[in-house]
């Protein structure tokens, strides 16, 4: 335990302290430790893992809905594409840039950019549809230089480089953990076909066997392991297992 005492200042101490304060001001007015980024004309470099606007790659998307499920702000809602699959849309009027969606996207279809300085004149424009997330958007940029913060052992320095920082980064794909859906209790299946209907990749098919009983079949090659059928199965007889 450490006892803290408050400073006592006698008259002499006071005079010294007044002089020190004035001295600091005088020194700073001559050699200031300015730490200002002249923003519209120069831009601060953000790290590659910066959480900014999202971009989307439909080829990698398995339409697992997890981005929509995990979004704490309900900013991601799914929309049907021409190929009848559901792809995410982002409403930046709600998005909180937590990137839980990016961290939930097992295919790596969602990726981050370093765009974060945008002004909308209308709230309706803030909804970004899937087709707008495919290509790199253009923002108004007035910057000619980029600034990087360098913190060495002594102080913070601003390193200015006369180059325009790129806002789009290459991202590493997530670790692949191949999973497939498996029925653990076929006898309990009630044949409601919800799993078939909900499956976006068409991995689950049904066939009527003898005596009119539906038989569900899971194609393990097609299955993306998204887990939607597991979640929807009313009898809780589906489970994700390692491939």
């Amino acid at each position, binding site marked *: 335990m450490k006892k803290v*005492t408050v400073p006592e200042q006698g008259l002499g101490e006071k005079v010294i302290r007044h002089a020190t304060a004035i001295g600091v001001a005088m020194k700073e007015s001559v050699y200031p430790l300015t730490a200002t980024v002249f923003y519209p004309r120069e831009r601060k470099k953000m*790290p590659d893992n910066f959480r900014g606007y999202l971009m989307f790659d439909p080829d990698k998307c398995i339409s697992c809905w997890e981005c929509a499920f995990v979004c704490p702000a309900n900013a991601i809602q799914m929309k049907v594409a021409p190929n009848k699959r559901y792809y995410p849309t982002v409403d930046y009027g*709600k998005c909180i840039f937590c990137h839980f969606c990016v961290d939930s996207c097992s295919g790596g279809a969602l990726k981050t950019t370093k765009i974060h*300085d945008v002004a909308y004149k209308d709230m309706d424009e803030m909804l970004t549809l899937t087709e707008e997330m495919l*290509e790199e958007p253009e923002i108004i940029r007035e910057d000619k230089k980029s600034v990087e913060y360098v*913190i060495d052992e002594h102080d913070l320095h601003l390193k200015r480089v006369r180059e325009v920082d790129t806002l789009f980064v290459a991202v590493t794909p997530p670790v692949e*953990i191949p999973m497939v859906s498996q029925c653990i209790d076929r006898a309990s299946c009630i044949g409601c076909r919800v799993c078939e209907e909900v499956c976006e990749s068409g991995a689950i098919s049904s066939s009527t066997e003898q005596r009119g009983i539906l038989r569900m079949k899971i194609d393990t090659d097609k299955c993306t392991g998204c887990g939607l059928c597991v979640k929807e199965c009313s009898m809780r007889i589906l489970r994700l297992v390692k491939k």
Partner: protein
Amino acid sequence: MEEGDKDRNIRILRSGVFTPLRRWGTKWSLWPCHFVTSCCGVELAHAFACGFDGERLGTLNMGISRQANFIIVEGTITRKMARALRIVWEQMPDPKFVNVIGACGQRGGIFWNSYNLTRPSEIVPVDFFIPGCPITPEGLLRGVRAVQEKIEGRDRTTIKFKTAELPSEGGKGKESRVPTTAKIFAPTPLIKVDVPKEVDWDFGEDLVKSLKAQLGGLYKSITITDKNRIAIKTTPENLVKVVRELSGTTGIDHVKNVNVIDVPHERKFIVEYMVSSYSEELMPVIITVFTEIGREAEPVFPSLTALWESVDYSEREMHDFFGIRFEGNEGMNGKFLLAPETQTPLRKDFKLEEERYVLEDGVPFAPKIELPSDLKMPVSEELLEEAEKSDDFVVLVGPHHTGSGHLRWIMRLKGDLIVDIIPDPGYVHRSMEKLAENRLYIQNIPLFERANISDPFNMNLGYVRAIEKALGIEVPERAKYIRTIMAELSRIGAFFYDSGILSLFTGHSTGFMYVWAIREMILEAVVRMTGSRCTPSFIIPGGIRRDISDDVLNMTSNFTSAINKRLRKFEDIFIYNPVFIARTKGVGVLTREEAIRYGIVGPFLRASGVDYDIRKVEPYEAYDKLDWEVTTGDAGDSLGRYMGRYEEIKQSLRILKQAVDAVKRMPRGAVISEEVLGEYREASKDIKGHLFHAYGNLVLPKGEWTSVTEAGRGTLLYSIISDGESNVPYRVRIVTPCWMNLRGIIEASKGERVADFWAVYGSFGYFPPEADR
């Protein structure tokens, strides 16, 4: 709104004589009336401090509405605040502009279905919306530039998306069924707060024995629910007696939490008081005294204010939330946190809007919010009359005032002396506790972080620790140290935030700028670690989202020494400035007894001489493995509180340095507990791609799980009540340090001079969003 036309200002600028001069003058002289309503205010401060210096663009921050011509709405406008926004806008001279920054003020962001939110765009005409939560300073300045361009005649959105072709093949040929919600709610859950747990805790067993002997027939049951946690069940009649007994002989001296749980299907409320003690051996023990009462429209319950003044505001809050009338509490005749029209929102039959997962045409993106019909929220007539009679001068400070923060202080003055201050909080009440009951456990991580974005890691850590406690997960060693680093960075950041505010409150803008430069360094470290400046959401149950690189570790290590150069200048110009010392010394003194009685927590309690720091009392993460000291003081005045925290920050830097060195020595490995990941244990180095798989269906065991964390401003308590079946919490109670300290501010300022109020207020580091939640 007849004046709600967005282009009205432009028309004003274009009419009359000298239009080019008028436009030019207005363009370069947009003085924002900073409407610091919520967390985005922190980033606004960064935009106007030395890191980005918004004054370059001619935008000089001005707190006074009559002289400003630009409102920057920083985030949440609650029902109570709506009125202030409208009035401030009306007070401003034409032409005036409004920018809304942050998602809360647009479609609600993470609070989109909150019961206490309104939309600024429905209250005043808005020129530009800047997305983000919070926005970055660059975003804010981009908004300023956009307004400047609008004045010049280019009214445009600053981003242009290119529309690309979506694939027309690759699907299964037909639309799939829309899946149901990911949330599982048990229809009639069994709610128990005293689920017994087998723990190895001898002291607890002895304590229970002695409690049983002492309380005699006053209790129904005494259960050990976890290590250091005891639950005593009693009847409503006996509750006060039990508590009196506890405080008399056992030495229990303060209340940590007042909580009510609504169980509609059993037609009951569970009312609980979490009590604890600052005497050496009982420090880590939290005793929950609870009872059940009938679920009526306005049930009556005895108040404990006579015993502990610290429960006062929490009881009023529960009165707002559940409609329980605490007999004996003076504040039961109206609303405290909420706007008058909101009725008992935390009862389970008060439903919030459900999430939609499919984008449908014609369906609004966010629920329609009814604006409060009456935008007036005056002071009670009785108060004014009484003040008139006793010849007091009543001043309303806030909610929109340069030195009020976002709450209203009703001050009664006699000359230059403060007779009484009545707080009117709730201007940033965003209903976190209600929202948490409707979200997955994992979705609540960003939610609770928004309680205080100047101290985000600690907010995050507290909640995650409660979950980990419930699940009994052991966090990997590396993650523990990294979490310690983050928590300490956050603590340092919070202290410098408060230093900046205190120096502004005492009129010293240079002090503010100096610490903001230091904060800029901290945020740089945070952004490189997590990818976000203020809201990292990085700590997840079982560890952290991903490992951090060696570069960042080196940078953090450098930070511990690089800070000194600037800190010394700050010391010279501000801390040891004789004027500052004169302003804070001997002001707002709270003795040890008073501090405990009013329920003050954290460094402010330590400044009054109580040696209580949760990092030592109930060590978590890596704190017990590092060498550091708790700081206490005896002065108990504003200066003592400030210097105590300053010393604590020096200790934090010590912890930081040791923790970084330890992490650097450690081999890289898992940073998330494999136990919690289960099948997805390959993701233990980086959760990317598997967050929802691993955490979407997290269900906590039945019972109440309480974690206490030493946040930047004091004891942060999370109490999660789980029914053991749902993957959403049944109830989450969060008691933030600022909420507990509110009482202290009031009591410390009474009898002081008017200007002292700001010295006291600033020294307590009060952060209204954290208090109001």
